[in-house]
């Protein structure tokens, strides 16, 4: 079979199972694919689909107790069943890996230079120590570590996440491998850093000629990087083919659904996302028929009884679906009918909604943030806890929010967006400025009802010892509603977010991630607030589930006239849901305005870079795009640059401006004029 096309890495009928509380979980149920020389194979799927278990099995890194079956061949050499030392030899010489967690991939007690040089010498024993170090510096420069020569004596913890990931890539290159396996290499990173790491990965590929397996949940990354794609679902490959085939003419409903549930930054999309109902099946028991059938709108009795084989639909385009022929030319919304909006919980009581005296002609803002400033004291350790200066988390941030409106707050880590949420919720006191509600200063108790928050991680923000009904009833109980009444209202709220009565007595861990977030939303609505602060409400969720929650949020906003402050790092999601956008960098608003204006015609150099760094799930558009890759990392908020905080990474400042113009950038803080805070903004 492998005689037809040469392959450097072949996986055949791979099965992996792990022991678990309730028995054995079969994470991989017969996966086959092959990696050809020099190509990039993207493996995509949602959490729990078995993509990482496949990678671990290939590398022989499965935890104790895991059982593996099938075959993994590198250059026609079988890897399964090899002893550890034999495997180590293969790993070093032929296969290199890049994992998501770069901190644990590097040894904390050796310097970065030493670790790269060590990898160099392992492969070229003839090189002397100094030559190996020279080669290490070269490699670090290739992957884009600035001042590599000075930094080789630094230790891993002195590097940022993106830099560490590039060091790991340099080590992978030193091995001169035939295959690089990258398992979610950019998942924990900000988009501008992700662009840097993807660049480094591409350089590594070009220099070593290695074929790459790129495992990720991000369809945009795959669209831009991969030649061929394998889509996994419930431990099986359900579709594979070239990126164009899979993205433009998917022949398996799951792939189609994934694409339809993804919000897109370029705005070329229907108004409403098409989520896939339900969640993947549990893998601790045998599955009969097609694993996707319970969630598939096209499923028939045939699907539920007989498992479709992974068969060719068009040359090397394979799909595992009985009805793949019916999917030709279908759009996501044709297959996944939009679900009707839920019945809204009763709207805010009239007396609360009507303004006090004035009858405004223009909608008066409900919430006003006026010049918010938040500094944190940084203290050293030790006995005296000396003051080490201040962390400038939020600096002079102002905005207004009116009923029915969604303001998107975007920014990378360290931009201060979560701090703003805390200031709004009075979980922190501002160092300067204030938050006004209906034009009056916010007081904690009195206004608790009007402003409510939905947190990022529902696993963390729901008390694990309370049932869904208790959780939703709690805000009411705290604010003096009787037990019976609070419970009745809680059940009504749960229904309005799509959770029926039977589930109300269950505990958070018995729900899926998306359902948990619904409970969080129901709880936030319990006090009939007028404003919801949504702090990364969907970033912990898989795409298909994320789409469902976004739709729910949109429905609730429209039905209840809620105002949302939507905080997110994912620009695509913000573009989908927000009316207006404010872009934050190091605690300052650098650009704000109407959503389409900001995303289609960004004027600030940072916004331009940010927008260009977001991968689109559209291979042709993605490859045709001009990308602005920022250099360097976000500076520490403890020592922000003077003047314009972005200037240390600003492509304009670094390449286009004259010295006189630069002096203005470093000396004068640019004011937010006409929605953009840059002395040399694009018109």
């Amino acid at each position: 079979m492998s005689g037809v096309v040469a392959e450097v890495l072949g996986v055949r009928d791979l099965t992996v199972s792990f022991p678990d509380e309730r028995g054995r979980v079969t994470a991989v149920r017969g996966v086959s694919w092959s990696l050809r020389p020099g190509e990039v194979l993207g493996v995509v799927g949602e959490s729990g689909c078995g993509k990482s278990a496949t990678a671990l099995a290939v590398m022989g890194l499965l935890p104790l107790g895991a059982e593996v079956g099938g075959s993994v061949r590198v250059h026609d050499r079988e890897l399964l069943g090899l002893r550890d030392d034999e495997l180590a030899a293969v790993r070093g010489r032929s296969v290199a890996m890049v994992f998501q967690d770069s901190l644990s991939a590097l040894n904390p007690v050796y310097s970065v230079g030493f670790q790269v040089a060590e990898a160099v010498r392992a492969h070229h024993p003839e090189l002397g120590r100094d030559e190996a170090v020279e080669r290490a510096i070269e490699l670090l420069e290739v992957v884009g570590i600035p001042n590599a020569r000075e930094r080789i004596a630094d230790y891993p913890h002195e590097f940022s996440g993106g830099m560490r990931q590039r060091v790991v890539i340099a080590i992978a290159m030193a091995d001169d491998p035939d295959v690089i396996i990258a398992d979610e290499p950019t998942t924990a990173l900000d988009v501008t850093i992700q662009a840097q790491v993807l660049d480094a990965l591409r350089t590594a590929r070009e220099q070593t000629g290695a074929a790459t397996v790129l495992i990720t949940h991000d369809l945009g990354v795959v669209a831009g990087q991969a030649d061929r794609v394998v889509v996994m679902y419930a431990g099986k490959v359900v579709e594979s083919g070239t990126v164009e085939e899979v993205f433009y003419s998917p022949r398996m409903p799951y792939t189609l659904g994934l694409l339809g549930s993804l919000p897109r930054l370029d705005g070329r999309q229907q108004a409403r996302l098409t989520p896939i109902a339900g969640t993947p099946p549990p893998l601790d028991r045998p599955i009969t028929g097609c694993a996707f059938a319970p969630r598939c709108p096209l499923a028939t009795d045939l699907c539920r009884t007989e498992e479709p084989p992974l068969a060719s639909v068009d040359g090397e385009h394979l799909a595992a679906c009985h009805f793949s022929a019916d999917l030709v030319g279908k759009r996501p919304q044709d297959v996944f009918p939009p679900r009707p909006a839920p019945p809204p919980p009763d709207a805010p009581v009239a007396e609360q909604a009507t303004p006090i005296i004035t009858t405004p002609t223009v909608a008066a803002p409900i919430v006003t943030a006026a010049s918010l400033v938040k500094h944190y004291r940084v203290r050293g350790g030790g006995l005296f806890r000396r003051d080490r200066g201040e962390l400038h988390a939020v600096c002079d941030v102002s905005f207004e929010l009116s009923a029915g409106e969604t303001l998107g707050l975007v920014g990378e880590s360290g931009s201060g967006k979560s701090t703003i949420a805390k200031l709004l919720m009075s979980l922190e006191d501002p160092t300067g400025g204030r938050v006004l509600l209906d034009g009056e200063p916010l007081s904690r108790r009195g206004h608790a009802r009007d402003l409510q928050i939905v947190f990022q991680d529902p696993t963390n923000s729901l008390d694990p010892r309370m049932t869904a009904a208790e959780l939703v009833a709690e805000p009411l109980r705290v604010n003096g509603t009787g037990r019976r009444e609070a419970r009745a209202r809680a059940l009504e709220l749960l229904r309005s977010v799509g959770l029926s009565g039977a589930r109300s007595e269950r505990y958070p861990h018995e729900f899926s991630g998306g359902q948990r977030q619904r409970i969080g939303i129901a709880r936030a609505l319990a006090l009939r607030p007028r404003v919801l602060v949504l702090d990364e409400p969907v970033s912990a969720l898989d795409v298909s589930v994320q789409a469902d929650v976004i739709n729910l949020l949109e429905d609730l906003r429209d039905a209840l006239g809620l105002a949302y402050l939507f905080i997110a790092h994912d620009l695509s999601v913000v573009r989908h849901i927000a009316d207006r956008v404010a872009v934050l960098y190091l605690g300052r608003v650098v650009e704000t305005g109407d959503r389409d204006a900001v995303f289609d015609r960004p004027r600030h150099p940072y916004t331009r870079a940010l927008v260009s760094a977001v991968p689109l799930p559209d291979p042709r558009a993605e490859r045709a795009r001009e990308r602005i890759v920022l250099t360097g990392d976000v500076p520490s908020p403890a020592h922000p640059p003077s003047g314009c905080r972005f200037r240390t990474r600003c492509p304009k400042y670094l390449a286009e401006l004259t010295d006189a113009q630069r002096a203005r950038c470093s000396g004068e803080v640019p004011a937010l004029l006409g929605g953009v805070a840059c002395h040399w903004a694009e018109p």
Partner: protein
Amino acid sequence: MVEIAYAPADGELSTATPRWRLVVRRFLRHRLATVSLVVFVLLVLLAFVGGALWHYSYDVYTPDNSQPPSARHPFGTDATGYDLLAQVLRGTQRSVEIALFVAAVSGVFGSVWGAVAGLHGGKVDTVLMRIADLVLIFPAIAVAAVLANNVGASSQGWLLIGLVLAALTWPYVARLVRGLVLSLREREFIAAARTFGAGSWRIIFRHVLPNALGTIIVAVTIIVAVAILAETALSFIGFGVRPPDTSLGLLVSQNQTAVSTRPWLFYFPGLFIVLIALSVNFTGDGLRDAFDNTRSRSRR
């Protein structure tokens, strides 16, 4: 009708087992702990039910003096003619009562103390924990002896001994709970409760303590064992339970001179002490593992 509109498909229902059932299952997997729990329950039943049914009472003389174990007196009798089985059962009752009382009082008090300190942090934390430290550095047995001695031999003496022991053991629970609360309070559900206006006491009783329950239960079982041994020690040196009432420690103490001549008088109460302490300790071990989700995977 309303429910159908947005009700997720059946597949979406998670199949996770309820938490308490997982805990029970993990506990039962721990053989030694399961056996220990059964032994402990049997001992308690024997002491309270058996003691009431046994045809001799602990404080009534029998005509037999210094009899070795026989069918009439399974544990034998002492020099004054008391039936030792009756006395051991009575002693077990007293010891278990005191231990459970101590565990309950110091468990509740220590938990609240630790939760308040951990949740508030800052000065409150410093003051509360320094007080706890102060109590910890008292030489427990000496203090207990002095206090118990001044109380005298009233009929409620065991209660006072329990109070004294509880006053000396609560800081262990407080420190444990405080540490746990320090990590719990960083969890977002505490912040969530604050955003809708929940006060500190509500947060402590509704959110913090229920989540710390596993740890508290484990700490309390350890205190049960500690209290039994402490009461034994106190009675042994003469400051605990007074005759005519009796406890396991007192029995061992009274009969220590008889080890070589009438060994049954010493070994039977001793055996009960060891059985109770061991079974409670192993049960605590099992509970700790059962509540700790992170341990369960490796143990099969």
